[in-house]
């Protein structure tokens, strides 16, 4: 069977599975629609959370980014997993005890104010919508690459699929399809990694392979990689940080608290039966996430080494990397390179006209290295590889069979679709439950509310798809903003709502607005107002990264600090919350008396 047919078969079969599950798990009541009836066991809930959480960005781009960044890429690994410790201990059990469907509902009730819940809805919608646009773009890219259709057609197909199972299945349908999607995506990630780890180190477990010896030499894989990249003028793989130590510190913190504050992740903890289950469910989610996240650094380092070994034969033999015959001849480059050249994501140009491809860092600041490269007759780097193709091209680089490549295609799509569905759920609940039922039409019937939720979801799919078709020139920036908003607005508000009995509505609202505003201000200064090109105002804040060299992606942690500080300052000068709210906080802290989630206000 040829590659294209195999891919159609794998992707088609996986979609049939998801839609079948959605039909089987149709939601009847609002409780089933928003919280799966509060009946999902912790292990399964953990798996669904993992699929919800791991988006196209985790699946497709993360390993490629780490591959380029080296040690500094660890901030994604620690940041996107460490948040679950915060979530498990600081938020999940208490929100489950509170027993309502949504984050704005908690904030509205705890801070006895519709203003607070409206501000929370705004934060939630901004965070979720920006995040979902990236997912729809990812769906389009994955479809177009693997199914041979245009990116636009890819997005339409993706919209239709998400619509089918999110709208009809609700949270219950989404939860069970996400369990299936998790199985597909994790298999697609780990199987190629095992093959490659075996090839390079003889060790089948990638997590151990990364710390093993490089086959055919007496060096460890990482020492070998360090040596190769340093000899080619790049920064040392195991020590190069992301910007500065301070930036890496703040960036990691932002990702952690952003993770804990993302509404579609928090919402998952309303679907478990008890408070105790909410605690362990976060642990199970992290187990399933860590399966991919601990494999990613191995994929990253091995792909980097493989790539250098492909274009420079001296990597394997241990000879002089700069010897003329070490670099491969243009004509003898492998087929997978030719395939990816067509997508424009891999390019080469013979700058010095020697008929060979030299791949090195021509922007090195090391004068001795530059002199050596010049003496070897190298006239600039001749190969550029887009970081996003590392995971997708991985099985091809390692010359694995067609079914593995088809599996990776299905895995990438599963990752993007499951996250998009979870985000749509959070958006739909915020609009129908918190805005329409909570504020505009409190007397709406359960049926009417369900219908509003479905309409809200359909509209968001169309909006997200449209933005995915016409991305206003932002991809990485949007994800950063989603985390920044969640970290600087929602996380501090929920945390203070539980851990500070005396926090009042004035403090919480002022804190959320201050955190949100300062984060948006810093991000927009770099990336333009609402990411519209040309509206950035860097000179006003004194140039790029002017706040102690912190990049806009890393700014969420600062926003959160501002949120806490403003909230406590305002709280001090306004009157304390009413007696019954303080009693409510006491009740939320104690597991006894937890009941099924319901939507009643």
């Amino acid at each position, binding site marked *: 069977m040829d590659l294209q047919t195999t891919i159609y078969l794998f992707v088609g079969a996986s979609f049939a599975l998801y839609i079948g599950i959605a039909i089987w798990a149709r939601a009847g009541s609002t409780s089933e629609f928003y919280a799966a009836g509060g009946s999902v066991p912790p292990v399964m809930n953990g798996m669904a959370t993992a699929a919800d959480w791991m988006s196209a960005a985790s699946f497709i781009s993360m390993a490629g980014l780490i591959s380029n960044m080296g040690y500094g890429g660890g901030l994604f690994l*620690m940041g996107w997993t460490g948040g679950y410790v915060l979530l498990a201990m600081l938020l999940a059990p208490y929100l489950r005890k509170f027993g309502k469907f949504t984050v704005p509902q908690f904030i509205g009730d705890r801070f006895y104010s519709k203003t607070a819940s409206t501000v929370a809805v705004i934060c939630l919608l901004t965070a979720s919508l920006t995040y979902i646009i990236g997912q729809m773009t990812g769906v389009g890219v994955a479809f177009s690459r693997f199914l041979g259709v245009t990116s636009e057609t890819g997005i339409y197909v993706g919209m239709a699929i998400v619509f089918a199972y999110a709208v009809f299945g609700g949270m219950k349908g989404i939860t069970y399809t996400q369990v299936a999607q998790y199985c597909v995506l994790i298999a697609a990630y780990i199987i190629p990694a095992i093959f490659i780890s075996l090839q390079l180190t003889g060790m089948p477990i990638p997590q151990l392979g990364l710390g093993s010896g490089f086959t055919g030499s007496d060096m460890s894989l990482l020492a070998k990689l360090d040596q190769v990249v340093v000899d080619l003028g790049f920064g040392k793989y*195991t020590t190069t940080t992301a910007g500065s130590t301070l930036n890496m510190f703040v960036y990691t913190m932002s990702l952690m608290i952003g993770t804990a504050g993302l509404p579609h992740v928090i919402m998952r903890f309303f679907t478990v039966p008890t408070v105790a289950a909410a605690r362990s469910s976060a642990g199970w989610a992290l187990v399933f996430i860590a399966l991919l996240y601990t494999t990613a650094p191995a994929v990253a380092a091995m792909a980097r080494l493989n790539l250098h070994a492909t274009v420079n034969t001296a990597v394997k033999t241990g000879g002089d990397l700069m010897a003329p015959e070490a670099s491969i001849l243009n004509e003898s480059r492998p087929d997978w390179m030719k395939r990816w050249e067509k997508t424009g994501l891999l390019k080469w140009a013979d700058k010095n006209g020697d008929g060979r491809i030299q791949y090195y860092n021509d922007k090195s600041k090391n004068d001795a290295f530059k002199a050596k490269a010049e003496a070897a007759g190298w006239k600039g780097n001749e190969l550029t590889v887009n970081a996003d193709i590392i995971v997708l091209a991985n099985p091809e680089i390692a010359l694995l069979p067609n079914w593995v490549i088809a599996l990776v295609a299905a895995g990438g799509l599963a990752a993007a679709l499951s996250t998009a569905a979870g985000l749509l759920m959070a958006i739909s609940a915020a609009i129908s439950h918190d805005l329409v039922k909570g504020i505009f039409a409190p007397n709406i019937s359960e049926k009417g509310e369900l219908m509003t939720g479905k309409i809200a979801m359909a509209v968001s799919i169309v909006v997200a798809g449209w933005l995915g078709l016409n991305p206003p020139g932002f991809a990485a920036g949007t994800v950063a903003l989603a985390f920044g908003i969640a970290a600087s607005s929602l996380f501090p508000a929920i945390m203070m709502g539980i851990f500070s009995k005396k926090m009042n509505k004035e403090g919480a609202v002022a804190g959320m607005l201050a955190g949100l505003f300062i984060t948006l201000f810093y991000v927009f200064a770099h990336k333009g107002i609402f990411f519209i090109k040309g509206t950035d105002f860097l000179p006003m804040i004194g140039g790029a990264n002017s706040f102690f060299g912190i990049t806009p992606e890393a700014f969420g942690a600062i926003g959160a600090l501002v949120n806490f500080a403003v909230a406590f300052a305002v709280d001090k000068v306004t009157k304390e919350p009413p007696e019954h709210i303080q009693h409510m906080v006491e009740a939320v802290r104690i597991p006894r008396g937890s009941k099924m989630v319901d939507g009643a206000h």
Partner: protein
Amino acid sequence: MDDVSKNYWSAVLGLLTKILIVWFLVSFGAGILFADMLNTIKLGGYPLGFWFAHQGSMYIFIALIFYYAKKMGEIDRKFDVHED
């Protein structure tokens, strides 16, 4: 607030503080601030600081959550506030 819930809450906060200290030490401590120093030690083929940033902190995070869930169960029962 009655004595039981006061004592319960301070037991919970005590546990959280302990766990957060470990959480901070493995990721921000060993993985970032002291990574260079730890890199002089080798764990198999891994420099230790690099291992904490790319592998170790994630394993410890998982252990922390399950430890937390277990300890909280014990605290709940000790103060008789567990679910039925």
